[in-house]
């Protein structure tokens, strides 16, 4: 049986309080009595009350003032105003200030009962609504990936179908769309979930280093190999190996990878020993592999090996419906990390977030929310807290000179990459040194520097 609601009766007249107390107790309610507005506020601070019956006319803090205070202390409590005929207008005013309804004293017995039952039903509906919303939010989330758009719902559907199999998966999508999160979700929902998930950022490593990272090496295999090292394939045995930025792998390493995928065996550099590995491969790239194949930069046979199941992650600009959901989630995440009170994304900020085209995708959104929370101090993120609020976002106000265009573009990419120089250089398709030169040339500095 659900717990009986607690009802707080606030009336300066003792007979009113007592008769209501007796009446409500017969119904099994837990009743509290307060003789003044201040006493009611104090009692509300100490204990939650589901229903508050509040007299309008009281000496000292009157009903309206008490209502305001009570709503601050216990916003969830429903307040029923009690009034005499002469103050009905004030009771209506109280309803405008958040009171649930009002009762004219003396009440008809069934009137009190009906009103209280109405509140209980209302509260049950609110609770049910919260639970349904939570359940709905769960459907908008797959592990750490969030999205209610049709495109993301399709991705979720694909993940849940693919995860239990051992099939190789190729995830494609622009930088910052959350390809690694998808790979982790596939691993986390597979039978390999208790075994390692090993991620290798193939594009970040020079060819020789990538080779030793993937396959490992024996002591003395090459100059500097002072001890034996396990490769990522070995580490991922019985688990999942996530090959990120597979489109950036050299043709030579592509051959080695193809061999492992075909034979399911690896050989450390400098070793004769061949080891069997049981690894599920998930690869990801932001490159156009079909074009890379045409240009002979990517092996077609490797492509088909990897592309058993293909998951295309849509860019954020194509799923703008997800922006409020994602923004709220990032706000919640960083508020928790920063030990901040609840912060909301204000309407002006949300308008800007929805208008922006997000070249850096979800990662850029996350960085911008984090930055806004660091910069802003209030309980609402406003347009002023966003880095593009003072910049022009419309095409008609874009810088006209090519140089300025380049500067703005570099700034955007850096922002999207969280000012990670290597990542930004990769996204810009230039080397780190070139990027450093351009930063100096355009005097680009991080906002908080």
């Amino acid at each position, binding site marked *: 049986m659900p717990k009986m609601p607690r009802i707080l009766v606030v009336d300066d007249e003792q007979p009113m309080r*007592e*008769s209501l107390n007796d*009446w409500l107790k*017969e119904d099994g309610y837990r009743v509290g009595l307060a003789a003044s507005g201040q006493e009611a506020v104090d009692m509300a601070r100490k204990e939650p009350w589901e229903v508050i019956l509040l007299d309008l006319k009281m000496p000292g803090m009157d009903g309206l003032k008490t209502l305001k205070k009570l709503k601050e202390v216990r916003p969830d409590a429903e307040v029923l105003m009690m009034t005499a005929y002469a103050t009905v207008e004030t009771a209506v005013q109280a309803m405008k200030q958040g009171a649930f309804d009002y009762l004219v004293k*003396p*009440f*008809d*017995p069934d009137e*009190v009962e009906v009103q209280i039952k109405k509140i209980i039903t209302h509260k049950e509906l609110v609770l049910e609504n919260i639970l349904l919303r939570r359940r709905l939010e769960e459907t908008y989330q797959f592990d750490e990936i969030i999205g209610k758009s049709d495109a993301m719902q399709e991705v979720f559907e694909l993940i849940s179908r693919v995860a239990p199999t051992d099939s190789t998966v190729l995830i494609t999508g622009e930088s910052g769309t959350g390809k690694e999160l998808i790979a982790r979700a596939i691993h986390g929902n597979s039978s390999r979930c208790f075994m390692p998930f090993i991620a290798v950022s193939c594009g970040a490593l020079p060819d020789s280093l990538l080779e030793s990272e993937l396959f490992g090496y024996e002591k003395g295999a090459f100059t500097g190999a002072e001890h034996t090292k396990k490769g990522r394939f070995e580490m991922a045995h019985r688990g999942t190996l996530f090959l990120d930025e597979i489109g950036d792998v050299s043709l030579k390493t592509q051959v080695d990878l193809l061999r492992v995928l075909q034979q399911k065996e690896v050989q450390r550099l400098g070793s004769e020993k061949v080891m069997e590995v049981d690894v599920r491969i998930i690869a990801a790239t932001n490159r156009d592999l079909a074009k890379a194949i045409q240009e002979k930069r990517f092996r077609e046979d490797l492509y088909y090996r990897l592309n058993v199941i293909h998951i295309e992650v849509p860019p954020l600009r194509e799923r703008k419906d997800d922006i409020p959901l994602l923004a709220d989630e990032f706000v919640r995440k960083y508020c928790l990390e920063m030990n901040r009170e609840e912060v909301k994304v204000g309407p002006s900020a949300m308008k800007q977030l929805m208008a922006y085209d997000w070249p850096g995708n979800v990662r850029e959104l996350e960085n911008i929310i984090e930055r806004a929370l660091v910069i802003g101090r209030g309980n609402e993120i406003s347009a002023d807290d966003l880095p593009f609020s003072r910049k022009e976002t419309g095409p008609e106000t874009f810088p006209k000179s090519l140089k300025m265009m380049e500067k703005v573009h570099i700034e955007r990419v850096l922002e999207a990459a969280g000012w990670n120089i290597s990542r930004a250089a990769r996204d810009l398709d230039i080397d780190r040194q070139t990027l450093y030169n351009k930063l100096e040339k355009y005097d680009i500095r991080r906002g908080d520097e």
Partner: protein
Amino acid sequence: MAKGVIICPIGPVDEGMLDRIARHIEMRCSVACRVSAKTDIPEYAYDERRCQYNSTTILKHLIGCCPDDVLGYLGVTHVDLFVPILKYVFGLAEMEGRCAVISMCRLRPEFYDRSPDLNLLEERVKKTALHELGHLLGLTHCKNRRCVMYSSVRIEDTDIKRADFCPTCSELFTWRVDTCVTVHGFKGSEVQG
């Protein structure tokens, strides 16, 4: 006469009817019940503004003159009762106490422009008396519309319910009576009214 519940007529009340109600209480509650001597109309509780009698005041009066060793002291009156916050009440009881008062005023069919019907009135008084006795024993309102402990806010509620407890309320009532008897030791003893 066995000790247990005393019905006290307040003002002119049909004592034959009260006797029959006492028998009903004995049968349904397994406690002794008798009708005491009539007391005066409770003028002390009259509210001129409302033209009604304040049941809280009457209840306080009953508490003051309630014999020490009774399970329940039930005043029955023909006057219309109210509590300050409500327009009227059919009855009022001290929750887990010993005194209660019920009014026959709004139990009469005539109050609702119907023809007088003594049988119907008696049935309604029985139900209201049992209901208030239930409160004296700590029972709260029951959700079963047929149970005598169902809340009567309109006369129709009283007419729908039976003059008996539902199995759960009956079980609770018996348990409470036994607890009271263990504590006070007056079940089956003489009522000293």
